[in-house]
């Protein structure tokens, strides 16, 4: 849906918003890759406090070679269903040019080879970066009142379906909206106020020092292993958000979108409004 640009330019993203946007982009990339590295050290997730195979939701492992098979097979179990995932999960790239029994492949982890200690160093450092970015964004957005434009309000709810129909080309015109359309508001509100805070909190909740300091937090998520499961599930949701974000950035004028997140200046399209 190529939007006709009106040529009118507006200063949309403050320096704080742009800085924190790119900082958490980098942080998310590093956190996902180092998180997969950490996952590989115990490649299973249980919906419980201590480990309990009866409550296992996901496990990624290898089945030893037997009979005609020359090498082990990657085996992934998800809610009791078993999948053969050789080369992708379980028996994969070891980060050093050959294959090994490893849950996530070397190309997806940081560092590439199995190295829990360094994976944790990356993860804990960029966990702070992500937290800093989200705080800077929210504080600056609150001070500048930019946040008002992207928080989903009850009055936006009836516009969600018409907007979705417009995206699906089942409707000619989008519902009238301000700076961000109702679906954008829903996505940004969810990511900024729910998913990113939750992924930080679930990460903290699975640490023994934090559990001792703030036990109700760990209990809230159902215990340490359950917090680990939520942490992983939230990551997959955020990856889903990232993919959707990329598709829409490229579908709605990539230069304009990317430039606005670099310089702050955005050229309005024919349906773009300004304000909350």
């Amino acid at each position, binding site marked *: 849906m190529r939007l006709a640009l009106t040529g009118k330019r507006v200063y949309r993203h403050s320096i704080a918003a742009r800085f924190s946007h790119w900082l958490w982009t980098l942080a998310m990339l590093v956190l996902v890759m180092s998180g997969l590295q950490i996952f590989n050290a115990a490649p299973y997730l249980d919906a419980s406090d201590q480990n309990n195979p009866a409550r296992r939701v996901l496990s990624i492992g290898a089945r030893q070679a037997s009979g005609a098979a020359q090498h082990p097979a990657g085996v992934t179990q998800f809610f009791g269903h078993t999948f053969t995932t050789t080369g992708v999960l379980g028996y994969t790239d070891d980060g050093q040019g050959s294959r090994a029994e490893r849950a996530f492949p070397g190309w997806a982890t940081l560092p590439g080879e199995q190295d829990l200690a360094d994976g944790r160093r990356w993860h804990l450092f960029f966990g702070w970066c992500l937290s800093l970015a989200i705080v800077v964004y929210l504080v600056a957005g609150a001070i500048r009142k930019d946040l008002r434009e992207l928080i989903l309000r009850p009055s936006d709810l009836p516009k969600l379906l018409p907007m979705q129909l417009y995206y699906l080309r089942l409707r000619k015109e989008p519902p009238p909206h301000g700076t961000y359309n109702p679906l954008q508001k829903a996505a940004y509100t969810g990511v900024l106020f729910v998913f990113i805070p939750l992924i930080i909190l679930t990460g903290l909740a699975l640490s023994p*020092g934090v559990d*001792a300091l703030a036990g109700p937090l760990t209990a809230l998520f159902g215990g340490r*292993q359950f917090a680990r499961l939520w942490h992983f599930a939230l990551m997959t949701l955020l990856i889903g958000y990232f993919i959707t974000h990329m598709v829409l950035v490229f579908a709605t004028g990539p230069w304009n979108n990317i430039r606005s997140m670099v310089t702050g200046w955005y050229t309005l399209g024919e349906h773009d409004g300004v304000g909350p």
Partner: protein
Amino acid sequence: MKRRLFVASSLGALGLAGCSSRLKDSLTNGPFHNVLTSVEGLNHKVIGTRGMARLYTEADVAREFRVNGNDPPADSTYTGLAKDGWSRYKLVVTGLVDHPQALTLAALRALPLQTQITRHDCVEGWSVVGKWRGVRLADVLALAAPTAAARYAIFSCYDADDGGAHYYESLDLAQAAHPQTLLALDLNDAALDTAHGAPVRLRIPTQLGYKSAKWVYRIELAATFAGAGGGKGGYWEDQGYEWYAGI
């Protein structure tokens, strides 16, 4: 134009995600490594050793307490002591103390015993609940009366890896004084077996499992842990893991 840009940036993103091991290694091991490790002190300050580890009930105790880490010590000192039922074992407390100690198991068991059912959290990510009984480390250190210069308790262990490097660990005095930090003697109502660290092991439920050193024979009070082992304060710390293991 749009398609070319999309293809180019997709390739760029893939390249970044799968970026060569060389690039990842140079980032991990280069000067940036010092930047990465800098947050350990921050984590220690923010989280520290405050609060109490959650206490569980008998019903939560796992049927089998998972064994991890080095194989049991194979040297003749350890096996000889084990053969004699630990009658000749003595836990030495030394270094910056006013009253050095050499405590037999009977002397340790004569101290007030604490039972705690707590969760053991491994750095790898797994957890298991066990019922521990032992003496508070604080009580043992009090017998030895650390001097004002003492800042760390360094634990020496009987076990060694295949390369001959001995296991050791260290805690600062605040961590050592935490009321749930034990020198454990029993696990699940039986004297510690060899695999779980007989006859005495550290048990610190507020930190990750590698701090809970097995097969302890000596506690040295010191102003710094730089002189022990590889100088980073512990066997796993020497291999890149954090000394502060509360997160």
